[in-house]
């Protein structure tokens, strides 16, 4: 990267630099004229670059350089005023910084690379004649939008705030959840052209330090022009690139990230997207919604079991229908077999073709619903429900039981709380359907064996994907087989390598476990007798 020797008198064009990173080789010249020429060269054909030349009191030349829209105009004006009314003698940048500028965030850069990263991130650069440093004033502009309720993960009970596109707001949202200096936020810059700010955040004292190093190293290796979304990073850092299963969890909820950090995981936040990544992830954690932990545990447990059942339906529902209705008619109750037969009487296609037609049109409807504007989306659902659901059955193109099975499997796939996990399930049911149509239930079993073989092989940042069930860790089943009440979850998951495994103190948890709750019998509820 730093192959080129710093050649201060060359112009930028001659240096032939392509990435901002390479500008680090160009140091700030003591001559303001030279600096100005370079900055002007950078600002060529850039309408949003602002260069403001001015002079300090004793005719020391200086200029400010910022990007319009990123820096806050009014703050820049205010700082400019402070410098311009400077009472002479202070031509040293350090002196200006110390005595004049009423700006809280300030840093120095001695090369063009750091300067550009700052300026393009919203800072204002202050060049003063005779200094080999440039002052970066952190007067960043207004945020893009306010914090709003996340649309992807809605809850009945729980916080309504979600991440936004500004990483600084996102880190502050997280910091509000965990007010401790041990919540660490490690900054990184990824993407040669985008120079995207990436923050790796974790709880020091809980997280395994090796995991943090591993995450940092994997991200450092990424050599790409731009990171426009977390998906770019996800595909680079996951353990098994060809697997359909997500090995990274994503969320737009600060509370989900905070909970993950407290379990000793690491979150990766990326500027410009409201999505944060969480690693490592297990298959079962993709079956958990954040609201499970906010609602009463009995309800959460029931919902979780329901999700497991629906997972099976989503994966095997259509395949099982195909297998049973074309190979194993003996398995059905007679009356059901007859009613399937009577509804299929007019259908010209074999069951598998019928199933594929419906599944594909269902996926098409879903995709159309996501991409279209909300107002038109409703029309799609009406059309889909009417045309595919009713008309196709009446026209005898598909049979009613098939519609029920496909719709049931479709709805079942939506009960999986993580969208990326439900995509994996939806994709995998197509090969299973093909297998079922060729080999019957035997084919489904082959598919199941292959699927399990793949799942037990998967790892996410070294953690087996199916933990805690494979390898079995019985104490950790409290958060998989059911959602244990909080006072039973004294320990953090033991399949994660952690520095601190205790989540809570023993005293209250034991008391609740022993008495079935905190007893209120010591409280005297009697009203004090009124004296006449």
């Amino acid at each position, binding site marked *: 990267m730093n192959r080129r020797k710093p050649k201060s008198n060359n112009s930028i064009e001659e240096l032939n630099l392509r990435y901002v990173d390479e500008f680090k080789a160009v140091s700030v010249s003591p001559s303001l004229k030279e600096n100005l020429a370079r900055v002007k060269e950078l600002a060529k054909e850039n309408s949003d670059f602002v260069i403001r030349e001015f002079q300090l009191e004793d005719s020391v030349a200086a200029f400010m350089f910022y990007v319009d829209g990123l820096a806050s105009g009014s703050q820049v004006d205010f700082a400019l005023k402070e410098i311009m009314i400077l009472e002479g003698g202070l031509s040293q940048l350090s002196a200006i910084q110390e005595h004049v500028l009423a700006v809280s965030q300030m840093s120095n850069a001695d090369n063009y690379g750091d300067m550009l990263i700052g300026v393009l991130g919203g800072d204002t650069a202050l060049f003063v004649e005779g200094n080999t440093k440039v002052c970066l004033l952190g007067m960043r502009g207004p945020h893009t939008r306010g914090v709003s309720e996340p649309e992807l993960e809605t809850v009945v009970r729980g916080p309504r705030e979600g991440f936004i596109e500004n990483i600084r707001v996102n880190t502050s949202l997280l910091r509000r959840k965990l007010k401790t200096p041990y919540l660490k936020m490690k900054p990184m810059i990824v993407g040669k052209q985008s120079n995207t700010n990436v923050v790796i955040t974790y709880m020091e004292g809980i997280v395994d330090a090796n995991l943090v190093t591993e995450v940092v190293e994997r991200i450092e290796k990424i050599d790409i022009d731009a990171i426009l979304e977390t998906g770019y990073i996800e595909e680079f850092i996951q353990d098994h690139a060809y697997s359909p299963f997500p090995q990274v969890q994503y969320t737009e909820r600060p509370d989900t990230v905070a909970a993950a950090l407290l379990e000793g995981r690491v979150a990766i936040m990326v500027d410009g997207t409201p999505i944060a990544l969480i690693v490592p992830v297990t298959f079962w954690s993709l079956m958990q919604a954040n609201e499970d932990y906010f609602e009463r545990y009995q309800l959460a447990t029931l919902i979780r079991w329901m999700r497991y059942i629906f997972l099976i339906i989503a994966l095997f529902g259509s395949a099982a229908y195909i297998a049973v*209705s*074309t*190979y194993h*008619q*003996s398995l059905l109750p*007679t009356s059901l*077999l*007859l009613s*399937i*037969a*009577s*509804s*299929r*009487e*007019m*259908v010209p296609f*074999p*069951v598998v073709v019928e199933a594929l037609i419906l599944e594909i049109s269902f996926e098409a409807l879903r995709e159309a619903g996501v991409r279209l504007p909300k107002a038109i989306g409703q029309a799609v659902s009406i059309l889909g429900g009417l045309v595919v659901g009713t008309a196709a059955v009446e026209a*005898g193109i598909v*049979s*009613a039981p098939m519609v029920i099975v496909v719709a049931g499997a479709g709805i079942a796939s939506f009960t999986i709380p993580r969208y990326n996990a439900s995509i994996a399930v939806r994709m995998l049911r197509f090969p299973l359907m093909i297998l079922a*149509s*060729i*080999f*019957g239930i*035997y*084919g489904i079993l*082959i598919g199941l064996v292959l699927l399990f073989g793949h799942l037990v092989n998967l790892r996410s940042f070294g953690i087996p994907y199916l933990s805690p069930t494979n390898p079995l860790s019985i104490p950790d089943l409290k958060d998989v087989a059911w959602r244990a009440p909080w006072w039973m979850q004294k320990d953090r998951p033991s399949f994660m390598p952690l520095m601190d495994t205790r989540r809570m103190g023993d005293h209250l948890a034991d008391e609740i476990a022993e008495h079935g709750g905190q007893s209120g019998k010591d409280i005297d509820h009697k009203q004090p007798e009124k004296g006449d």
Partner: protein
Amino acid sequence: MYKRVSLIFFLLCSPMLLTGCWDRVEVNDLAVVVASSFDKEGDEYRVGVQIPLVRPLGGKGQGPVFYIDSEKGKTVREAVDRLQHRMSRQMIFSHRRILVVSEEVAREGIRPGLDEVARLPDNRLTANMIISKGKAIDLLGSSPQFESLSAESMREIVKLPFVLPVNLKDIAQALNKEGADPIVPYMEVTEPQPKGEENKKEVQLVGYAQFKRDKLVGVFKDKAADGSHWLRSHFVTYMTTLEVQEGNTKRPITIRVMDGQSKITPRIENGILSYHVKVEAIGAVQESMLTEDLRFQRNQDVINRAFEKDIKESIEAFVKQAKEKQTDPAYLGVLLSRAYPKEWKENYSKHWRDTLGEIPFHIEVKASVERLGQITENITKETNRD
């Protein structure tokens, strides 16, 4: 090494060829046989099948809901094969729940017909066999009102709570054991009273066919059929009507046997085999035409005695009929072989049927009517008019 791996791979892949899309049959290419019948015609069997007709959903027009056809053959499968030649859809027998065998066939033996049932995997041993009075195919052809298929109707009847549960597996087991004979539900076609629409005929349970080995020798009806409930492994409820002497007249009272326990113990004392049957029964009054108030213990005692006598009589009737024909529907031989395996092997198993007729039975019944119903006396009793 490479050879071995490829061999293992080949072996692992070869079961894939056991099944495949060539086995695929769409639901609409199937003729689902729900019941079949066996009749005798000359030297050959006449096999009838009942197949529900599948019509498109929402299709208009009322037609027959099922279809019955029959064909002759030296074996059951030959007849079925001949039938298949006139059917555009492939018959499957895995949904056959009812096999109706005519009395005529049963008298000659059901063993040949049962071979077909167990040989093919798509037959279910949980299916029910029914012996028909008269032609078996007439039972299939009956048109019961409640169910659209007569097969379904027969199945529901044999599954009623007061019918002894007997399926093909039980029959096969009884046939395989020395010292056990099957009993099979016995049904007939009857017309509802008064006659409703034309050709509407119902099937009805008459009793249980009595078998000697695989040959039908008689039918347990009425009292004997009730008695059969006590000598099977599980008690099945039934209803009985007693006549109780009250003054000069006999008045009827109907009792449901709610719960019962029977213990049959074979005993060999001084080389003489006898069976001790100990029965405990709990009854519930369903209807009483007695004038006495049932609340009083002495009235209850009278009923209890009559109830006990009734049970005893029914068991005796059953045992008597079984002995007469030298049959063993109560699995007496099996019980003996369990209690006295050595004696069974040496003395009894060889000529069990000859001994059967002479075995004395000691029947001890303890019965009580515990549920009297919401009222204990007739609400329209004459004394109420005061």
